């Protein structure tokens, strides 16, 4: 293999200086702006988690005060959910890849795209200000009447920060939907779309339809808190459970905003890692849309013990099982894709293996939670903490890191150190399981979530979890180091270092600002390795 060189012109050398970044309309540069933003928030949210795990290493609440602990888990949740998990894959990988994957020059509305980033940062900084100027202690769920009547912390500023950021989700969602509808290259029919685009499309639908409900709910909280409108406080004639309905009507679909993009990434990783079409392409694509639609009908499963009627609970239970089916279909199809593949053991594929395994456990424990009679015992305990971290951290973050490693040569034009990357993938997988598996046991034992102190018999399992968290933290720091290193010292990547098919691999690494010298015409089915024009090259010598 001859040493590759970076192309003479690409989006990274098309203009230098701060203005060329802060005023850019290039979706690829905006993706990197988002990368900086979400990475920043990820490490802030992670630091809060580390402090919580340190506190929980002993049964007594001795490291931080109860007040501080309550603020820590609130800030961890708010930042991770709204400023990392929801934007991470769509705004970074989606932004970078959607126009290239449809063979377009940019998104449909490049200026709106830049505005989305500014709105996201504004909301984020607003929330950070609220958090650091005293913090907030309601949990990321803002349950009433605690949040509107009882809490004395910065509820309104935090809610406003999230409110602002919501507009960024809505605008990005619109931008993606219009781009996928209107800007596909000639020949790129819906049945030829990469599965990543199907999942981004489904995600965008949820963002556009669901986020306004969250915005309204946050305004109602602010109105009740500031002006004592009686929406939720029974003393004012309101209904506290109404808040939970409104909140979960957005926040359950938001779970799919976090995991659907991850599923899209994994479909791409598995196809390229096996050099094979994804098994059951149509079923995987339809599963994404089914999840987006059914996801709007299951919010009540967060409220089985909250005072909703028995019959409502039963209906939400059966609908929750229905939404589990498309997820199961995806897992089976990814696994089947490996059958008779040319299966790679490179870093992106390691993350895909990790994702499938951990998402499977997260999904199967979801079956426990959807069974109403069993949910009663495990809800609001560490069982639920473990369950959703298997989905969000084991699922979404694994896929995000896998995608980042897979497309890094395309994004940066450089190759990272493969062995360090494999090592850190292994550390993350081990650390993750050590952190969260003991929490399933703790949850069934009955340890409630959001406890600053706990009975001594729970200590051993908590110590295991805290030990795992420190390993996990180290695992997340290593990629920062070698990816930054690769920007300067990494070998130049070829246009297609993985030997993958897909329009993004047919342009240079990094791509030119206009993505393609001329608009491509698509004449092949998705993942058409048989007729791939570009010859695959090995990545690891």
């Amino acid at each position: 293999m001859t040493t590759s060189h970076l192309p003479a012109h690409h989006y990274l050398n098309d203009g230098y200086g701060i203005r060329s970044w802060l005023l850019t309309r290039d979706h690829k540069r905006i993706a990197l702006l988002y990368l900086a933003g979400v990475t920043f928030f990820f490490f802030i949210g992670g630091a809060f988690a580390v402090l919580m795990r340190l506190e929980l290493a002993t049964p007594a609440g001795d490291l931080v005060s109860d007040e501080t602990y309550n603020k820590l888990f609130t800030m961890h949740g708010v930042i991770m959910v709204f400023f990392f998990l929801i934007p991470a894959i769509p705004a970074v990988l989606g932004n970078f890849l959607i126009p290239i994957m449809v063979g377009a020059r940019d998104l449909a509305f490049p200026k709106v795209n830049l505005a989305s980033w500014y709105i996201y940062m504004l909301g984020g900084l607003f929330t950070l200000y609220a958090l650091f100027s005293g913090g907030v202690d309601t949990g990321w769920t803002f349950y009433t009447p605690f949040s509107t009547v009882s809490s004395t912390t910065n509820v309104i500023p935090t809610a406003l920060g999230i409110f602002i950021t919501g507009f960024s989700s809505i605008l990005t969602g619109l931008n993606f939907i219009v781009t996928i509808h209107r800007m596909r290259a000639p020949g790129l029919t819906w049945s030829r779309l990469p599965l990543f685009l199907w999942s981004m499309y489904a995600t965008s639908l949820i963002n556009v339809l669901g986020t306004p409900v969250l915005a309204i709910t946050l305004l109602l909280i602010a109105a009740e808190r500031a002006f004592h409108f009686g929406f939720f406080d029974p003393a004012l004639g309101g209904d506290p459970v109404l808040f939970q309905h409104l909140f979960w009507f957005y926040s359950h679909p938001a779970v799919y905003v976090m995991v659907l993009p991850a599923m899209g990434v994994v479909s791409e990783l598995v196809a390229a890692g096996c050099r094979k079409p994804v098994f059951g392409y149509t079923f995987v694509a339809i599963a994404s849309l089914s999840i987006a639609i059914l996801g709007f009908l299951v919010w009540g499963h967060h409220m089985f013990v909250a005072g909703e009627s028995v019959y409502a609970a039963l209906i939400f239970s059966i609908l929750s099982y229905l939404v589990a089916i498309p997820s199961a279909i995806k897992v089976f199809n990814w696994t089947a894709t490996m059958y008779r593949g040319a299966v790679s053991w490179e870093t992106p594929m390691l993350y895909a293996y990790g994702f499938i395994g951990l998402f499977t456990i997260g999904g199967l424990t979801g079956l426990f939670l959807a069974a109403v009679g069993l949910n009663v015992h495990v809800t609001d305990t560490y069982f639920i903490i473990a369950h959703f971290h298997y989905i969000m951290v084991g699922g979404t973050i694994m896929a995000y890191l896998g995608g980042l490693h897979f497309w890094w040569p395309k994004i940066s034009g450089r190759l990272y150190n493969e062995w360090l990357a494999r090592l850190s993938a292994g550390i993350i997988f081990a650390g993750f399981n050590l952190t969260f598996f003991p929490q399933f046991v703790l949850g069934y034992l009955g340890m409630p979530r959001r406890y600053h102190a706990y009975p001594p018999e729970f200590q051993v399992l908590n110590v295991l979890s805290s030990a795992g968290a420190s390993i996990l933290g180290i695992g997340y720091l290593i990629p920062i180091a070698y990816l930054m290193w690769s920007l300067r010292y990494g070998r130049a990547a070829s246009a297609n270092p993985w030997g993958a098919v897909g329009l993004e691999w047919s342009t240079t690494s990094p791509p030119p600002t206009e993505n393609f010298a001329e608009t491509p015409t698509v004449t092949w089915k998705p993942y058409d390795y048989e007729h791939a024009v570009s010859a695959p090259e090995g990545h690891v010598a």
Partner: protein
Amino acid sequence: MWSGTPLFPEAASTMATRVDALYFFLLGLGVFFSVLIAGLIVYYAVKFHRKTPRAIGAQLRGNLVVELVWTVVPLLITIVIFVWGAELFYAMSRPPGDSLDIYVVAKQWMWKFQHLDGQREINELHVPTGRDVRLIATSEDVIHDWFVPAFRVKSDVLPGRYVNIWFRATKPGQYHLFCAEYCGTKHSGMVGQVVVMEPHDYQNWLSGGETGRTLASAGERLFVDLACNTCHRLDAQGRGPLLNGLIGKTVRLQSGQSIIADEAYIRESILNPSAKITAGYQPIMPTFQGLVTEEQLLQLIEYVKSLPTGDGASAATKP
């Protein structure tokens, strides 16, 4: 290291073993599918590992029969789990008829209990084995949650509402009581214990200690102190409806609707009397919002419940 570290909770109620049965079924199912998927991934990753840099996989695009199998089989399995979980929940949600009633008031950050015989407890609750216990619970401030892991029972306790929670303890002992809905600064301090006793020990406990007045008689005294008795007269001649035998009865309202009188209805009628006016009566009753505490409300309710169902009972709905 593991001594003193339980890995599975004690089962001390009739519901606990039923919940555990479903849990073990799902655990078996979960282990089976996790091992299946993980096993296939490892097996395929080794067996089909890329041998040459330019190798490509077999170009299989799918198989309709296989897709249908792994759609329908999980669907059938989930229907079984749904029915099992639903049946369990239905049993949990229906308080048995003949139960030992205990009133619970939750507040930041404690649990207050009132027994019918007048005993009051804070953060500790004594109950007998072998008897259905029904808790009628409300909150003074924010949402709390009654959670006793050994019973596998959990329910949010809401302000402005009465929630029924029931269990039948099977094993004497002391069990954790947790607040499981985040309720503010000292949430993790809102814990206590449930002391389950053999029936005769429980009787001894009931008769020991300070013997105050019963809940109903405390309610009766309040009924007089607040001058409720001037209108709600026992001879059915008062300006307010007769209260004898009210609980469980259908009440016809001024609006033309009918409701079944329960604890929540009595509570509302004390705090917000004009919300539901009994047909044939004038909306003259003043509100007692702010004048009676949640605990006093429960005493009044218990007093109303204790009134004998007299002949004049039908007069309550007479126009």
